[in-house]
């Protein structure tokens, strides 16, 4: 057999194509080598999916397919846990963990196995990513839950109603300035007739699919290994934000998928696209970058910084690729800065907690302030020893894998290889992870550290995957040991992602986001919208504020947008002239008072908003007199009584 024919058959078998017919061989070889970009750039994994050459097609197929029904069974277990949790059953948590186990462990085994084929790994990461999205969705499958999703729901509602952008959102004023998520949802609502809840869930679900596949393909392009890519995606899925925060109807969820798409397209442009295809890739990157810049502030800031570092640390490469890289980075900066300057300058004030967190860390280092106690719940909920162990295990394991991964990169020369630009940037961004621990010791920084994990884990996951797939110590470990490590990461990440009271639905808790949203509050808000009319100025606690905003279509008084703080009205034990003048100053017409606030400390640290008296330092629940005082005020009318929730007409409350 001629040599070229032998070679052709080899290429065909790698690609999974049928053997070429007689006489077509030379032409076929020429056609394929020209199209396999990079001009037969040595026929390595630059073009071919990296493990095609190594994979053993057909192995583990039953196992790979089995992960789908096992994950479905896991979801059934989670749904049963939710059902039990709504009824206050004690052991709902055990069923929840069993469900997560069924989703996580079989898929981990497929991904971590050296024998799995590339397609099986892809199936496994998609099953994990989408199942974890559904785990969160099952917690509240008939309406939005949590606090932030309501704010975006309001922004979407207003776009759907008015057909215009940039309508005011009194509780989250920056949300209308970054309308990417709401635009896509509004398009779906208009074109399908679905509700905002269903359309929003579909958008976030599709964004999750894009994120998970984008991450896998990005890691595969950079790491040149399907196994490494699968492991990195799996480790990313264990990050504390993945299961809860990034599955919610938030602008960050969509922006993250866009940002990952940008990184993937940049890697594609650098390592796979032929030179003549670079302008097309650049055009695509430009579109996605603009969409990211108009969808979420922090995500766009972080990933533009990532692109800039990528351009700065890139090793020598052909001029066209270097120009491409710098063009992308500069375009990213231009898009973010222009949007910020022209339309979203308010976001600078909104991001003040970031600078507060940094200054708290600095004063902690200078020993000017005491550190925050770890595992301290604001409410009365107890943090179990298991939760503490899980959180410590996650942090220790992740840090160890990160260090091991960095060592492996140094040892194997990955930091100087052909794809060193991404490897170096991953390594640098991953270093932010141990630094983020410092934030956990400060009151303002704790929340920030949690939010950072979404971004820094893009780098951490890659380093951890390098450690697992390339370090001699872990390579000796059997599959079972690796699955245990993956299980520990998932367990700890879930614990860190949400406190125990937020992992499952259940009976009402005070100021506990999803756990505070229940029929009484929803019906009171609906009554306000239908009977009082829309757009009245109202003042309420944290949860009733978002219910009144969305179900009731009222206009809440909120410190962030009004610059008038009415929170003292809720804390005074006696009705005073100052309360009246505060409400009149904020033009408040109705006051919503929830007597359940007196039953417990707020789980989120505040009853109303961060500016309230004693915020994050409440030691005793709100006194009863604070809510009953309104009944004794002569000029207030109690117009609604729903049991726990009363609404007062305070239009004539002034002195």
């Amino acid at each position, binding site marked *: 057999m001629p040599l070229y024919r032998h070679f052709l058959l080899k290429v065909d078998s790698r690609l999974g194509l049928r053997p070429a017919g007689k006489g077509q061989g030379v032409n076929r070889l020429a056609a394929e080598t020209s199209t396999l970009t990079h001009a037969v750039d040595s026929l390595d994994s630059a073009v071919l999916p990296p493990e095609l050459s190594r994979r053993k097609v057909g192995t583990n197929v039953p196992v790979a397919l089995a992960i789908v029904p096992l994950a479905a069974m896991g979801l059934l277990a989670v749904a049963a846990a939710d059902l039990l949790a*709504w009824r206050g059953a004690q052991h709902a948590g055990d069923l929840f963990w069993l469900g997560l186990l069924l989703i996580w462990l079989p898929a981990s085994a497929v991904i971590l196995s050296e024998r799995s084929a590339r397609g099986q790994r892809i199936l496994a990461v998609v099953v994990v990513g989408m199942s974890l999205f559904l785990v969160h969705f099952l917690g509240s499958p008939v309406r939005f839950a949590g606090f932030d999703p309501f704010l975006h729901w309001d922004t979407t509602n207003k776009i759907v109603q008015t057909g215009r952008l940039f309508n005011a959102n009194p509780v989250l004023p920056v949300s209308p300035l970054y309308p990417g998520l709401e635009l896509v949802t509004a398009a779906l609502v208009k074109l399908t007739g679905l509700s905002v809840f269903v359309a929003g869930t579909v958008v976030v679900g599709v964004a999750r699919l894009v994120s998970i596949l984008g991450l896998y393909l990005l890691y595969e392009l950079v790491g040149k290994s399907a196994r490494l890519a699968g492991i990195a995606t799996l480790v990313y899925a264990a990050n504390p934000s993945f299961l809860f925060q990034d599955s919610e109807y938030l602008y960050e969820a969509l922006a993250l998928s866009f940002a990952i798409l940008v990184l993937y397209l940049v890697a594609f442009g650098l390592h796979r696209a032929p030179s003549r295809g670079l302008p097309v890739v650049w055009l695509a990157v430009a579109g996605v970058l603009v969409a990211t810049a*108009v969808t979420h502030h922090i995500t766009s800031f972080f990933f533009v910084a990532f692109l800039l570092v990528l351009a700065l640390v890139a090793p020598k490469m052909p001029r066209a690729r270097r120009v491409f890289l710098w063009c992308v980075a500069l375009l990213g900066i231009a898009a973010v800065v222009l949007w910020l300057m022209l339309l979203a300058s308010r976001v600078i004030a909104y991001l003040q907690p970031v600078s507060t967190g940094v200054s708290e860390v600095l004063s902690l280092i200078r020993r000017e302030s005491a550190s925050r106690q770890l595992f301290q719940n604001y409410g009365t909920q107890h943090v179990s020893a298991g939760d503490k162990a899980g959180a410590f295990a996650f942090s220790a394991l992740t840090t160890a894998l990160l260090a091991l991964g960095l060592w492996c990169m140094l040892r194997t020369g990955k930091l100087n290889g052909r794809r060193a630009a991404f490897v170096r940037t991953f390594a640098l961004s991953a270093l932010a992870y141990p630094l983020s621990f410092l934030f956990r010791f400060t009151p303002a920084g704790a929340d920030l550290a949690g939010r950072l994990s979404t971004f820094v884990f893009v780098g951490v996951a890659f380093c951890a995957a390098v450690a697992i797939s390339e370090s001699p110590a872990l390579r000796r470990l059997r599959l079972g040991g690796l699955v245990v490590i993956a299980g520990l990461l998932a367990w700890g990440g879930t614990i860190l992602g949400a406190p125990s009271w937020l992992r499952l639905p259940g009976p009402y808790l005070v100021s506990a986001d999803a756990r505070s949203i229940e029929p009484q509050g929803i019906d009171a808000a609906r009554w306000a919208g239908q009977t009082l009319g829309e757009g009245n100025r109202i003042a309420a606690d944290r949860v009733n504020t978002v219910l009144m905003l969305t179900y009731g279509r009222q206009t809440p008084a909120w410190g962030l947008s009004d610059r008038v703080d009415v929170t003292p009205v809720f804390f005074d034990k006696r009705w005073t002239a100052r309360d009246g003048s505060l409400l009149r100053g904020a033009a408040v017409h109705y006051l919503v008072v929830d007597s359940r606030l007196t039953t417990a400390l707020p789980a989120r640290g505040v009853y109303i908003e961060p500016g309230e008296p004693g915020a994050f330092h409440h030691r005793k629940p709100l006194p009863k007199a604070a809510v009953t005082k309104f009944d004794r005020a002569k000029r207030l009318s109690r117009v609604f009584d729903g049991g726990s929730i009363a609404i007062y007409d305070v239009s004539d409350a002034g002195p």
Partner: protein
Amino acid sequence: MTRTAGPLTIASALVAAEIAAVFAPMPLRVPAGLLLVLVLPGLAATQAVRGRLTLERTEVIMLVPGLSLVTSVLVGLLVYAAHLRLTTVSWGLAIAVVVLGLLALGGRLGERTDVRPRVRLSGWIRSRAVPVAVILCSLAMIAGALVLAAYGERSATGGGFTELWALRTHTGPTPAVALGVTNHEHGSAHYRLQIVAGRAIKVLSFELARGRTLRRRLPIGNARDGVTLTLSKLPHHLDYRHVRLAPLEADGSQ
């Protein structure tokens, strides 16, 4: 798929989806709208770049929804910048323009040169019956999970409650109070409502089925009188709910 069949198929799907999204009833609008927002723009974009780039199947699966989402954001911004309202028609037209533009661009960028690696399936999986059965079983289980979770959330009504409300109303010849009682208890309930307006007292006794609302408009003698309403849930809950309208000052304020 031949070189021209791709764009033609996309264009045909676009026309069908546009018609369904704008004119068809609800069940047909859902797939049409999903296609317009989440599939066709990305499909047209990947089709357009195939003259210059090689895309593997997984990449196409990721890029189609990803680029569709991006397109929807950019289209929305452009429509707004053009001072048009974001209505069903404007969304539909704008997406159609973009999709057709991308298809035209694809025609200009040159011939398709892509080679899509195909994963060869083993004999075990090549027989489609087994994977199809597995997927169908899994989907059934996921549907079951959704039903179970939705049932859990819908049935979690807490302890049940009743709402009482009252507002002054200025419509009609005489001053009056509009009042309402809504039963959200776990079943029918008997109520007794006492209304005190100035020196006048009125009592209403009634039964309400679950989810039902009683509405009344009660004239009051003096528009400035304070009004107090006390609702009892029989037989046990005296003073179950109460509302109070403060007396009005001479200038009409409370």
